């Protein structure tokens, strides 16, 4: 009986403490994006150290990640004669990124092999690889390399060089931090996604300006496996 009373008191104390902690949490300002220190794969609560700008997002364990091509995609779409959209993607899409508590230490590097372009029609893919569009023989890759990463609420604002068709241009994109998890093989995974629009004419791709839209919408979604 004495043991039961002690257990009940302990449970009550724990529950009260937990409630108070929740109340305290609600009244606190928004915490920064919780990036864990390197080597710790388990999600941890937000730290008390303020990081500017304040943010609250999914936990991304700090470390270097290799992009898992099987769970990543670089998808594009282009207007076709002012009517519909033509969609496609690059089957060979690789890269790596570094997650860190300090956004300034984060980096993202992506590479797509132009020859792997896939729009579901093999002859159109041949045409896309030709000098009319990507010129895959002369410019075999599309690359992005970040130069500056900033926190933007729960997400990131990433500035970097996008190189396509031999032209390198600095762009800034809002990147959504999707989250992280541990797979059955005990590997830590983290994912990001961004949507952006580029003008193909900015990259020297001028063929059929009246037929194929100049604006190319890109969706870049990548999941990395922590090294």
């Amino acid at each position, binding site marked *: 009986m004495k043991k039961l009373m002690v257990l009940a008191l302990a449970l009550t104390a724990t529950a009260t403490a937990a409630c108070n902690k929740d109340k305290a949490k609600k009244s606190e300002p928004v915490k920064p994006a919780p990036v864990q220190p390197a080597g710790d794969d388990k999600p941890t609560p937000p730290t008390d150290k303020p990081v500017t700008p304040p943010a609250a997002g999914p936990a991304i364990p700090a470390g270097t990640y290799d992009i898992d091509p099987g769970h990543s995609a670089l998808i594009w779409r282009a207007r076709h004669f002012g009517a519909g959209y033509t969609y496609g993607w690059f089957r060979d899409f690789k890269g790596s990124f570094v997650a860190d508590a300090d956004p300034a230490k984060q980096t993202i590097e992506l590479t797509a092999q132009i020859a792997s372009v896939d729009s579901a029609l093999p002859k159109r893919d041949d045409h896309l690889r030709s000098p009319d569009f990507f*010129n895959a023989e*002369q410019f075999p890759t599309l690359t992005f390399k970040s130069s500056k990463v900033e926190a933007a609420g729960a997400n990131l604002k990433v500035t970097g060089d996008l190189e396509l068709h031999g032209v390198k241009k600095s762009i800034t994109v809002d990147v959504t931090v999707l989250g992280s998890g541990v797979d059955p093989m005990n590997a830590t995974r983290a994912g990001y996604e961004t949507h952006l629009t580029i003008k193909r004419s900015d990259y020297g791709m001028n063929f059929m300006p009246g037929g194929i839209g100049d604006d190319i919408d890109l969706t870049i979604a990548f999941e990395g496996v922590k090294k």
Partner: protein
Amino acid sequence: MSPTSFQIGMGLHIVGYPALAATVGLVVSRVLPAGSRARAAALVGAAGAGLVTSHVGLAGQPPWPPIDSIGWIPIVTAATAATLMIAALVVPRRAAALVTGALLALATLAAVYYAGRPTFLRSFDRYWALAGLATAGVVAGAGLLTAATDRSVRPAPWVAWIVVAAGLAGCTLWSHSALVAMLLGSAAVTAGVIGVGGAILGVKDIGPAPAGVFMVHVAATASYAHLYAKLPAWVLMTALLAALAPIAVPVAMSGRRRLVAAALGVLIAAGLTGLAAQRMHAKDAASVKDAASMYY
């Protein structure tokens, strides 16, 4: 069914503007004294203007330095035309053939190099084969042009070159580059204006220099198509033989039956180019069938 603004725009860029540019140069040469240095220079300018206009209109004005090596082609063509115009004005007549031949050889070597520069910077092996064949073809074609036209009908080689450029355009279209196909097709337009238009206007003294500018331009474009648009090497070889046929046949026939020599040269050129185009078309038709017939 009336043509759309898109179709009209394409027509103007492939045919209209280059034809206009070359015609202006041809008309200028027509009013200049026959056999004069100024007329020779104007004819070179006419060829250069037509070819550069079509290229810039279709592929866009290249940045400096060009990023895609296709941008080097109009630059080299313009430089070749400018150099040959100066040569036509200043080089003594007895040295003209030698100087023109030497300049065309250098121009072809440069044109092929710049058209395929990204590839040749990685590996120079393919350069000598491509540039060697192209230079031999250009120098032989331009060098023997006068001898051939003296032994056949004057515009015959130009008619054959129209067919060769148009056939190469078809082959390139079936290797899936509409842009390079249009560039070759519009080069045929310039050949038509200079060769056939010149005959109509009575400009009889079209020498090897305008032909050389045309051949340098087509050699560079065809080399580019081979390197970056998967145009097979056998198509290039066939086109080279076809382009030389209207030169070789009259020279070989030594001036006998000029009309037959001219017709035979054109027919061989058309036959060879037609066979290449037919084979490319068949290869494309036999490849993977796409769900949509019109995928562009």
